[in-house]
């Protein structure tokens, strides 16, 4: 049994990292907004989903034009990523303006409810547009980066099988890491990043220090949503097929990742995302093997939610977060 688990381990690691990278970047959006507003932006998963659709639309559009076939795939990807990220970033800013800013002083339940409402609206609007142009809301984009690479894991030790990788895996992982490093630099080293951390620490004092709080919050939403949208594009490239309902559950899991790593903590979100992706993939590949067929891959979501509950009960500050006392 152990042997079988080990055999597939390289492949499981590769797949887990792909999924984990997606979770990690989406988790960044949650964690940034939570850090600054103490608000779970439920609609973030939907921003991610919109990104996937906008990206796919751009791919179809650009590749439909004859001359575009000459563009190398990698440059095409960068163009689409930048375009999509700026659009979803603006969507995020708009969301904050319409749905969250008027409620900044309302009881905490209320913005959570608008967030759920916004995410329903986004799902349905995207469904509508997709159905109008495609006839069906399940959309399959053009396949990119589909070259296969074989990772010779068996040469390391004979107990492993080789792992097969699509080039898109490297792209997803690479872009995700670049995004995360850039964000880390932005938050820790730039003027705006400092302002952002100041607002997260104490909004009122920050405003006394001549920081434009509204602007900082808008920028936070822009960056978080742009990252979410860009991840959507990566998701579309990696998995090919998307529908308007991918954002909700994926968003939840990204949130779990953020909690796991320590909410409000950017490096924690990255760690949490990677860990959750790996654990989930491991569970779905090996659960039935380990339990002798009693529990199968269908229980992997139970697994993810159980992690969340356990973390919240035993280590609510997460792996990398600092424990905070409640303000009275």
């Amino acid at each position, binding site marked *: 049994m152990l042997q*079988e688990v080990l*055999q*597939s381990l390289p*492949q*499981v690691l590769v*797949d887990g990292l*792909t*999924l984990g990278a997606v979770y990690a970047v989406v988790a960044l959006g949650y964690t940034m907004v939570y850090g600054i507003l103490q608000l779970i932006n439920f609609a973030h998963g939907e921003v991610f989903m919109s990104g996937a659709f906008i990206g796919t639309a751009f791919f179809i559009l650009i590749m439909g034009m004859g001359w575009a076939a000459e563009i190398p795939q990698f440059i095409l990807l960068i163009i689409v990523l930048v375009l999509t990220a700026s659009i979803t970033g603006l969507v995020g800013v708009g969301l904050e303006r319409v749905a969250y800013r008027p409620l900044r002083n309302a009881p905490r339940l209320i913005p959570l409810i608008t967030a759920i409402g916004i995410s329903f609206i986004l799902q349905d609007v995207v469904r509508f547009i997709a159905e109008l142009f495609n*006839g*069906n809301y*399940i959309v*399959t984009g053009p*396949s990119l980066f*589909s070259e*296969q690479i074989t990772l010779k894991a068996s040469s390391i030790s004979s107990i492993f*099988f080789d792992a*097969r990788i*699509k080039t898109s895996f490297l792209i997803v992982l690479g872009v995700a890491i670049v995004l995360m490093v850039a964000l880390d630099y932005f938050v820790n080293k730039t003027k705006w990043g400092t302002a952002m951390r100041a607002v997260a620490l104490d909004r009122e004092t920050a405003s006394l220090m001549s920081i434009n709080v509204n602007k900082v919050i808008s920028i936070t939403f822009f960056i978080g949503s742009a990252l979410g949208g860009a991840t959507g594009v990566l*998701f579309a490239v990696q*998995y*090919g*097929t*998307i*529908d308007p*309902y*991918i954002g909700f*559950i994926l968003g939840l899991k990204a949130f779990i990742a953020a909690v796991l790593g320590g909410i409000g903590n950017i490096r924690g979100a990255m760690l949490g995302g990677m860990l959750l992706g790996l654990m*989930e*993939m*491991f*569970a*779905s*590949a090996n659960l*039935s*093997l380990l339990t002798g*067929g009693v529990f*199968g*891959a*269908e229980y*992997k*979501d139970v697994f993810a939610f159980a992690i969340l509950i356990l973390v919240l009960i035993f280590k609510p500050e997460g792996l990398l977060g600092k424990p905070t006392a409640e303000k009275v």
Partner: protein
Amino acid sequence: MKLNKTFGVLLSGVLSIGILAACSSDSGSSSSSSSTTPTNTEPAEGTKVIKIATQSPLSGGSAIIGEAIKLGAQLKLEEEQAKFEELGYTLQLEPYDDQGDPKKGVSNANLIGADEQIYGVIGHYNSGVAIPSSEVYEKYSIAMVSPANTAVEITERGLKTVNRIVGRDDFQGPAGANYAINELGAKKIFVIQDKTAYGTGLADAFIAAAEEAGAEIVGYEGITIGEKDFNGVVNQILNKKPDLVFFGGLYSEGGIIIKQARDKGIDVPFMGGDGMDSSGLVDIAGEAVKNTYITSVAGDSTATESGKKFVEDYKAKFNKDPEGFSVYGYDSMGVFLTGLESAIKANNGELPSKDKVAEAVRAVKDYKGALTDVSFDEKGDNVNAKIFLYKFEEASYPPVQVGEVGQ
């Protein structure tokens, strides 16, 4: 001042509800008035309206197929319109959307039951919806002809009103299993299902038949519908190295599993049921769909003369290609109308009771449909139902027929 406000709230409340109601009443009146018959013809004075409902998912993941069933039924209804006009009746189609949701299906069924003019239902697509809804039809004696439900339980409950023209799971599963073992030489089979009523039923029937025929089931896994990453389960397939993978579920997940498995270098044949019989499978899986087999209760529409004519009419009318189930919607409507006609004739041209219509539909024998012949047995199963086997040799829909199994 306070009272004034209260009154304002009250008035606006009543008004808003009134407006809501007004919208719906419009619908009520216009659907019962005959000015909006599907054929656009004003019925002559004195003709009676007979409505036939369709219940299929017009929204949600199976919307393509649900729509296809509805359009197929609509086509047949419009063709038969003239014949019934002569008898003094106007036929109307009343499409309902069950959203693939049992609750919605039952609530629609109650609306259908309440409408005295509805004499029959063509539907459903999901067995999970058909089972509870048919209990309601039974209460109101409305005949149901199912174009797509393969679950065994549909007709096993001894309901008088429930009929189906397609094969059952305990017929489809074995047909697939026998083909896989005898023709494709599969000895080790990996089974995946989507944990829905349909997927579970089909996969269990397949496993039972495959084990009986001597194959080994090396793995049995469930997936979550709506997800896009099935690499975990695909990795299990890699581990077990089966000769064949069977998937009980719909095309939207099946397509992704096939694609992800092919990416990982799994080139053994895949097999699926009628839920994969959709052009969507090719859209999603692309080139990876090659070497995939499906068993379907839906035959190739172009195999017969009448089938070819159906395909042409369908294209001309709706400006799109028929799906596998379109012709079943068409034939279900045909069977129902045959029963209805004989009930009317038996009643000397008068409007028969719903009981009589249901009896007449059950009694239909040797109906020649565009694709399938229909004779119902005492349970309401079609004794002429066939299972067809297809293979995707190219990444195009429809696939090539490679086999046919009769009862």
